[in-house]
């Protein structure tokens, strides 16, 4: 299980309704169902992963978040979760807006491209960074819109949504991101976790 799941679970209130966008093999869905008694649905693009979810008894729709979120009416869910996939979309702006239309709140996690290892890789090797959490080559990576923690905060100002909570994951520990520490969190954070809502 991914390190951030516990922290996502802490943000989500018990007995709420949740949509996991890009739910993968349903690990987070199962975890939330068990620990927070949530009514949870998933949407996943890979047929194989959908099959795994069905075998776990999870309600999942095969679909693409960029095209298939449209079908959900406004405020269908208390929370919509988007785990480490924002950077893979052709238009992250539309996706964020859709998440905040479908959900009252959204939890978005992003692999932090501002992490020092990534920076060093580019600085010294002069090649596109490859790390354990970003294992692809530049030509086959699904991550076409990488961003940093700082970028995401700026993004919230540009497209006008509110960051209610922002956390950085560093060595399996979680810490709050604030205006005063964002330089360091952006340097050391491996992952940013954001609870967002419409302004």
């Amino acid at each position, binding site marked *: 299980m991914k390190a951030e799941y516990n922290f996502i679970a802490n943000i989500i209130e018990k007995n709420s309704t949740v949509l996991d966008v890009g739910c993968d093999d349903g690990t987070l869905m199962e975890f939330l169902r068990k620990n927070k008694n949530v009514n949870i649905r998933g949407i996943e693009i890979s047929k194989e992963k959908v*099959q795994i979810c069905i075998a776990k008894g*999870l309600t999942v729709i095969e679909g693409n978040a960029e095209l298939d979120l449209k*079908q959900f009416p406004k405020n269908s869910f208390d929370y919509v979760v988007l785990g480490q996939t924002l950077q893979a979309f052709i238009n992250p702006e539309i996706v964020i807006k859709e998440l905040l239309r479908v959900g009252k709140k959204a939890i978005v996690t992003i692999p932090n491209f501002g992490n020092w290892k990534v920076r060093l890789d580019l600085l010294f090797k002069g090649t596109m960074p490859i790390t354990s959490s970003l294992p692809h080559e530049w030509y086959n990576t699904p991550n076409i819109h990488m961003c940093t923690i700082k970028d995401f905060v700026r993004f919230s100002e540009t497209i006008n949504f509110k960051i209610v909570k922002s956390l950085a994951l560093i060595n399996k520990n979680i810490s709050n991101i604030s205006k005063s520490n964002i330089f360091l969190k952006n340097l050391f954070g491996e992952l940013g976790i954001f609870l967002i809502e419409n302004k």
Partner: protein
Amino acid sequence: MNIRENIKKLIIEKPLKLDCGKTISKFPLAYETYGKLNENKDNAILVFHALTGDQFVTGVNPITKKDGWWSYAVGPKKSIDTDKYFVICANVIGGCMGSFGPSHENPETKKIYGTDFPVITINDMVNAQVNLLDFFNIKKLFSVVGGSMGGMQVLQFVSNFPDKAKTAVPIACTSSHSAQNIAFNELGRQAITADHNWMDGKYNSKSTLPDKGLAVARMAAHITYLSKKGLQEKFGRNLQERDDLKFGFDADFQIESYLRYQGSVFVDRFDANSYLYITRAMDYFDLVKQFDGNLSSAFKKTKTKFFIMSFTSDWLYPTQENKDIVIALNAIGANVGFVEIDSDKGHDSFLLEVPDFLNALKNFLDKSYIEGNSES
């Protein structure tokens, strides 16, 4: 005919008002069951058959002596596990395997109904079959399952009886028959009625049958159940028991011979008038129109958990038409899962050995059953 008399039948005493306006009563509904109904009566699955199916879902069909139409999916330890579930399947009204249909005798005229039989709809079929629940004293079915026209019945059933099924699995179907669907059905009907042995549907009182027309109808329909790729891989341009073309109109190609065979075995087990009536019922099916253009309204009251499946190579009931149902259900926050199964076997995939499909069906049912039991 003797074997047919041994078919299990429920006589429905209660009058049923049909969509065409006529009312029928004291009519037979032929059915078959598999597995055992448990004490709580919460393990029953009503399976709906497709256009040319019947109540003999699995095992050996006592009439045709062939395997039941859904033998891959239904049976002990199979997707619909008859060790666990009590499976009920009825022959649709309008059909020809014992249920009230056009080959029955009209008590008023003492003649075979033929085309005097009332036009029936998917709604009528479902309203007739719901009587089986009372007969078996089942308050709520664990599931309603069906592919193609069976899937349409699943949708109609949940819409008509929102609290009578815990789960629903419509497979490779649609909420509204498309122009293409209607066109192919019309082709089949025209083939039947153009056969001079059809005699305005009164062939039953004569010794001749419109076998040629019915066979052509089946051949045309059969092509729509397969995919181009599947046909090409199975037959290609292979020749039938000959080394070269014969420069005639005999079946030179294997695909021709195959289709002729499919047509010829079909006429032995199916009634031409039933084919007219059932295809008509499919064409009239339009759940969207029934709810004034809003499919979501069809399911407004339901708490049923849906699982919808389509197949990549199904061009008769393509994925988008199945997805439209998913979208309508999501729009009202209904519980719905969906997966498109990879298969090059066309619309027929749901009847064949397609492991991804069979596994998904089994997993959905078994997990939902456990879930339901732990809740109560």
